């Protein structure tokens, strides 16, 4: 750690980079804590907001969907929505915050060396911590609406890990792109909105897309295609499967094979994102 060689990025070895990242693990923790502290520093409720905001969100859904109860056949529709919305919020906040993590920390980047990967990582982990605060609230709410916790909830860490990997890959790519093209952040505002509606939060793919598409000799269910195209769709559906269950049935185990494929996709995105990011990271100091 105390001995290093400064060379152009493409001459550095991966093991060296990862070893250095490990040496700086305290910084990740401190940045996560810093962001959380700063976020709640001037609010009266402080950390309670992490719990209060999912509760308030749920209250809104409860009132809206309670009034429009007839519109839905699902039981406890507000919880159906909340189960999808909380993981989406994590993704959404991490991406929106992560895009600016290099440009927004220009004063740090220009003055201090540390592995630049740490900034995206700490954004994603910081939002993960917020998400983790909300999960117990969700579980208590599900219980109150007679959807008890089952053994399948043990899948939760796996699903969370896959989402973390996927989110990190996306944030690496976008944070790096935003250094060179500042429009990235603006464009992503719109893209994230579209992505939100393309993700099964207020609906589910299986009931929304029932038709079968035919492309030449192949045919595929539209719902399945949506899952393949949108990893967030798969992830949200899996949270719902293990915590909420199907619209009519109790929680069940996720389709392990499908989850594995999503994991593979997420990993590929992370590798590409990490490669693109570290390749450019050495020049952030002169670009921001």
């Amino acid at each position: 750690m105390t001995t290093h060689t400064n060379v152009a990025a493409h001459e550095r070895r991966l093991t060296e980079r990862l070893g250095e990242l490990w040496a700086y693990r305290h910084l990740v923790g401190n940045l996560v804590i810093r962001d959380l502290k700063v976020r709640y520093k001037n609010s009266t409720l402080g950390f309670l907001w992490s719990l209060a905001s999912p509760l308030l969100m749920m209250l809104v859904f409860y009132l809206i969907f309670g009034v429009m109860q007839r519109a839905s056949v699902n039981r406890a529709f507000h919880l159906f929505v909340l189960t999808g919305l909380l993981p989406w919020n994590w993704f959404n906040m991490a991406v929106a915050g992560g895009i600016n993590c290099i440009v927004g920390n220009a004063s740090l980047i220009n003055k201090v060396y540390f592995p630049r990967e740490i900034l995206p990582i700490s954004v994603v982990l910081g939002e993960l911590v917020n998400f983790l605060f909300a999960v117990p609230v969700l579980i208590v709410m599900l219980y109150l609406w007679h959807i008890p916790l089952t053994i399948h909830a043990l899948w939760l860490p796996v699903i969370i890990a896959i989402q973390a990997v996927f989110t990190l890959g996306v944030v690496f790519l976008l944070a790096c792109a935003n250094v060179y093209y500042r429009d990235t952040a603006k464009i992503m505002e719109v893209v994230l909105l579209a992505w939100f509606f393309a993700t099964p939060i207020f609906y589910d793919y299986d009931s929304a897309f029932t038709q079968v598409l035919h492309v030449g000799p192949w045919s595929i269910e539209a719902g399945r295609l949506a899952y393949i195209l949108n990893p967030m769709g798969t992830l949200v559906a899996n949270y719902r499967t293990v915590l909420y269950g199907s619209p009519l049935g109790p929680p069940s185990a996720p389709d392990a094979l499908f989850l594995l494929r999503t994991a593979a996709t997420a990993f590929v995105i992370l590798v590409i994102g990490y490669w693109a990011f570290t390749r450019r990271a050495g020049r952030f100091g002169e670009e921001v």
Partner: protein
Amino acid sequence: MDAAIRFEGVTKTFVVAHDRPRSFQEAFVRVFRRPDAADRDVLTALDAVSFDVEHGTAVGIVGPNGTGKSTALKLVARILEPSAGRVAVSGRVAALLELGAGFHPDLTGRENIYLNGSLLGLGRREMSRRFDRIVAFSELERFIDVPVKHYSSGMYMRLGFATAIHLDAEILLIDEILAVGDQAFQHKCRERITALRRAGVTILLVSHDTEAVRELCDRAIWLEDGVIRADGPTDRVLQRYYRSMVAREEARLDADEAAAASAATATSAAATSTSTSVSSSGAESTSDGAGGTAGDGAENRNADGAPRTRRTERSDRFGSGEVDITAVDILGPDGQPHPIVLTGQPMSIRLRYTAHAPVDHPVFGIAVHRDDGVHVTGPNTRDADLALERIDGDGELTLHIAHLPLLEGNYEVSAACYDASLSHAYDHHDRRFPLRVRAGDVRERFGLLALGATWTWRGEAAPSNPARPGSDEDAGP
């Protein structure tokens, strides 16, 4: 021993960003445009630079602005990445580039100390061990749990310095000796840096202040235009650097003077000028028989019929006008006008005058003031027993100085012609001519004058210490 810092053929180029696309729109537009040579303006900050810094030495990098000094420092700190070549560093690096970089305004001093520590790769436990020392050094005990946004800028920098200096770094990078807090604290910082140096910390200092380099470093590297111009013992390198700087400043002043002269010519021709500037060498060329000067064109015209009263109109020139001092030149050792003279070198000051009528027993004199108003000296022809019986028409007087005793600084020269009793001014230019003195080869720098004195010593010589210089004192941190 292996080098603490090793530059191996390091090149660093920057693409000057005046036409770099910053948005998709610009990138899109550029697709349809012919590539332009001007778009690819590449600045080479360092050009295949190689040097080693041994463990435990202090090296200063000097050079004019924008010639790669700070780039070199940032390469060692890994804030920048070389375009080609390698920078090998062995030892933990602490960079005093900007104090308190990474402090978050909403966090308290305590929280920021830990955060800053981890930015430099130190864990919570390692920082806890140092915490009390950091706080004690910063003298911020009372404010350590206050968010740093409520700190004054001095407090902020004190905390930044205290944190950076307590990281037990083996290599310290300093960009300018820092002006931190009040005088007392600055002394403390300097003492601390000196103590670290004695304790064997490798120091790389970048500074415009060559005295700071001289004080702290045993070796200097002169970097200019991306290449090493000189590298060696501090005194030798600084001397060469100094000469080049003086030559550069002279060239600049000459250019300024040429520009001012052409501007003055232009304004005289336009006959509307109210310019009162005197060109930098003090030369006021006689422009016509009426005794006016180029720089005083406007007054000259205003007062064509009343030459004797005109001088009361300006505060820096007065007198009854029988004698006009028409030019004052600062001459270097070669007898030519120079905008800059060096301490310890021969120089002279030449006055040219025109007497419009015969004047009996005039006394010419000059005065030198430092630019802060201190009256340094005021020789005149009467005190020097130069008897001038009666003058008429043009003439010149030269004051010869064998070894200029003035130390580096900016001074102002006055020139005057009085009657024998020194009570009536014929012409008096009050501090109108700049005298720029630079240090040259003289190392003295305290006070106003280099006396040219010598020292002698009598006493018992102790046996010389075989250890490294400086290690005879308690080097413990």
